[in-house]
């Protein structure tokens, strides 16, 4: 008897949460479908013409893990880092478990850089994470990207020619691609190599903010293949 009011309110709360989650999910699905449709239509046969360093970075609209929409061109005037990620990949885990990626993110965002982690893993992949799960994983790693974007259809990944996880792209305030490549200089899955490797992202951003040309602007990305939808 005495329990009933609290259990009632609990069930009401649960129902409300479920409804909110449903509306979030459906909104995300609708937006994602629209984005994919629009992007597919517009990209068409240019699917493979990824930008080279020094060219204009393709604009995109994407939905993040919390359902919010982000448009690249809205960040004009700021440096934007795109980081392809997939927690199922050992190379991604190398840089997250060691704290390297979260530290790089934090250093960048502290300077006003917009950091967008992008997950282009297809839904059918064994290590695909739902937005909420991906978000939770990012939080558990103390990661601090500006947003984590869902790109299950691989539209953004294909537009940028992202091949590996991790694969890093840096876009300057004018929307030009100024860096494409790996997170650092030693291609391995060994966390021990991080300390002796050159962190290309820190280096490129440091040089850019210092007004210097980026010395290593195209490097070799290394890691797992992005698991694109076929």
């Amino acid at each position, binding site marked *: 008897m005495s329990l009933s009011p609290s259990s009632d309110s609990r069930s009401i709360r649960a129902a409300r949460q479920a409804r909110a989650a449903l509306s979030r999910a459906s909104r995300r699905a609708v937006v994602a479908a629209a984005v994919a449709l629009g992007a597919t239509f517009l990209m068409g046969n240019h699917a493979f*013409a990824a930008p*080279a360093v020094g060219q204009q970075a393709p604009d995109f609209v994407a939905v993040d893990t919390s359902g919010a929409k982000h448009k690249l061109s809205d960040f004009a*005037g700021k440096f934007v880092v795109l980081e392809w990620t997939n927690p199922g990949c050992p190379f991604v885990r190398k840089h997250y478990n060691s704290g390297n990626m979260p530290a790089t993110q934090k250093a960048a965002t502290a300077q006003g850089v917009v950091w967008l982690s992008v997950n282009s893993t297809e839904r059918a*992949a064994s290590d695909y994470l739902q937005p909420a799960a991906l978000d939770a994983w990012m939080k558990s790693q103390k990661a601090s990207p500006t947003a984590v974007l869902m790109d299950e259809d691989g539209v953004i990944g294909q537009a940028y020619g992202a091949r590996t996880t991790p694969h890093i792209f*840096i876009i300057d305030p004018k929307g030009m691609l100024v860096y*494409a490549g790996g997170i650092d200089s030693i291609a391995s899955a060994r966390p021990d190599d991080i300390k002796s490797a050159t962190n290309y992202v820190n280096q490129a951003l440091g040089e850019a903010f210092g007004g210097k040309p980026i010395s290593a602007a195209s490097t070799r990305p290394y890691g797992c293949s992005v698991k694109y939808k076929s």
Partner: protein
Amino acid sequence: MPAAAQLSAKPGAVVTTPHVRAELVAHAPEGVAPGAPVWVGLQITHQPEWHTYWKNAGDSGLPTELNWTLPPGVAAGEIAWPVPRKIPVGTLANYGYEGTVLLPVPLEVSSTFKPPLALGTGASSMDIRLKATWLVCRKECIPEEGEFTLALPLQGSTALHKADFDATQAAQPQPLAKPGAVEVNGNKLQVRLEDLPAAAQGKTLGFFPETPELIRTAAESGKDWTQSWEGGTWTATLPLADQRSASPTTLPLVVALAEPDRQPGQPVAWRTEAPVSGTWPAAAAPRAEVSPALQAALAANAADAASAPASFTDLPPQPAGTFAVALLGALLGGLLLNLMPCVFPILAIKVLGFARQAGNRSAHRTAGLAYTGGVMLSFLALGGAMLALRAAGAQLGWGFQLQSPAVVAALAALFTLMGLNLVGVFEFGRAAPNSLCSAQARHPIANDFLSGVLAVVIASPCTAPFMGASLGFAIGLPATQAMLLFAALGLGLALPYLVAGFVPAIAKLLPKPGPWMGTLRRLLAFPMFATVAWLVWVLGQQSGIDGAGTLLALLVCMAAIVWALTLRGRTRLVIATVLVAFTAVLTAAIGRNVLQTVEPARMASAAGQRWQPWSADRVSELTGAGQPVFIDFTAAWCVTCQYNKKATLADAEVLADFDSKKVAMLRADWTRRDPAITAALTSLGRSGVPLYVLQAPGKPPVVLTEILRKDEVRAALAAL
């Protein structure tokens, strides 16, 4: 055989994981001695579907690494990589191995090598230690590693894995007699190899560059790249990677026969280190030199450009003395507005109105005054509203009211009603037949006033061609002067009717009333409906096909209701009720479509198209790179813009001139509100479209006339 027993029994020579079985194997048929052939190697047997990688792993992956620990005097050579296989992964590709592969490494035993003393057994051996790391992938990837040890007998033959080593040796790429040549040509790599053996000639070869990050790995022969034979010479043209990070002067490469073409005992692949000629396409020296200080300066500039006109262009500053000229300009501009297609429907009504009241001079005078009042007051209201909104921070420009789908839809409805009225579906004033006298007395004035208002609302998007500069000037002026300019503009627009009303000689030129008026009236319905067609198209630009479709459906409903109201008695009640109810349901169901705003393109349009979307950054980037830029400031609701777009800017000769001068063509679409475009217009001293600007690097921008002529564009281009 003691050696064999030792090899197979020795723990530590095999590492088994869920994905591979890896074994350290050796081949020393003549024992271990200086000069004797000694091979060791890691033999990897993959589980089905899993693979490890070649020295160039391709788009992802990592090559297998072998780290040896050997006794002094013994050195390990490089891995003699067997011919890899191209493994496609969706749109990407890797180079690697499936099934069983042996990665052999030659050991060089020098004369300084001191065999360890044999203790007891008499059969001395050499300890070989290997630490290997490999990445094994299916779709998912697992980095694995293993430590291996092997005691290789110094005397006697170690040949347990002879077959494996022999097979691997046979699958080794054979060196080519001539190095061949690689030429960089644009975004292609042209490869030429000579003196290939007859067995390979005419066959399709696989191409494996040892340098990573060079060509597009996933490119398929016959589809993305071509190859051809001329005797023993093989040539191929391969696409470079979009994000190439290597620019070697020598390219080590392997070409291989396809697996069905391979003959046992015959070479299957060839290797060469070809010199590279030609220049690698500039990796476009990244100049992200936007320091925070510069960025702040840029932001300040942008803010200035938004608040004050003519900040980055070389347009002369407007001296105060030009105000009178601007007023005159506004008056003339208003006059010329009467010739604009936007105003034509209004013109039609006015002509009809004058004809109806032929001979009635006082009526003419009143009508002229009422119309002038309507025009001037609406110009003042519109101008005032724009100034107020701009003061409040909204980025608006002339014609802004047509940027709202609601206004466009309302105008379409209004014009449909006017068209229906002219066709004769209904008459205004039917509702009050008894108050005929008073209606005749009052209605003309109200009608004339309202037609003046309508003229301004419709005409405003057309004002820019003649009034662009003057209006841009007005916006930068103090409010009172600006309002005076708007009033002058209105006076100009209304002037012909005012004059016609007061000067009888002009009114006399108009024909006498007669049956021709009925014909003219019906004829004039068509400009109205044409205007509706244009407005629906404008709405389609803003709200998409659904919005335009819904608007058309609602216009049909409205027409039906209007018709129903002209019926009499019960029929009128029933039909009108049904139609109103149906319209209400329809509006509730899909009415929202009209007011929705469809977002612009998701992905910026791809390069290679003639017109690129405009942005201020893109302009400075292009001119910074030394390229002249042509900017078309346009909007769907701007008829003049559409005319120019379809005529002059689609002309083959004009486009050829643009191409020959390598002019980048940018289009700034102002159909929807866009603060960036409004700011750019302001900075060029304008507040409306069309506006055509040709900007050469290091020169002031050339503003072309609003009604763009072919010879003018070509002359401007020739002057570049």
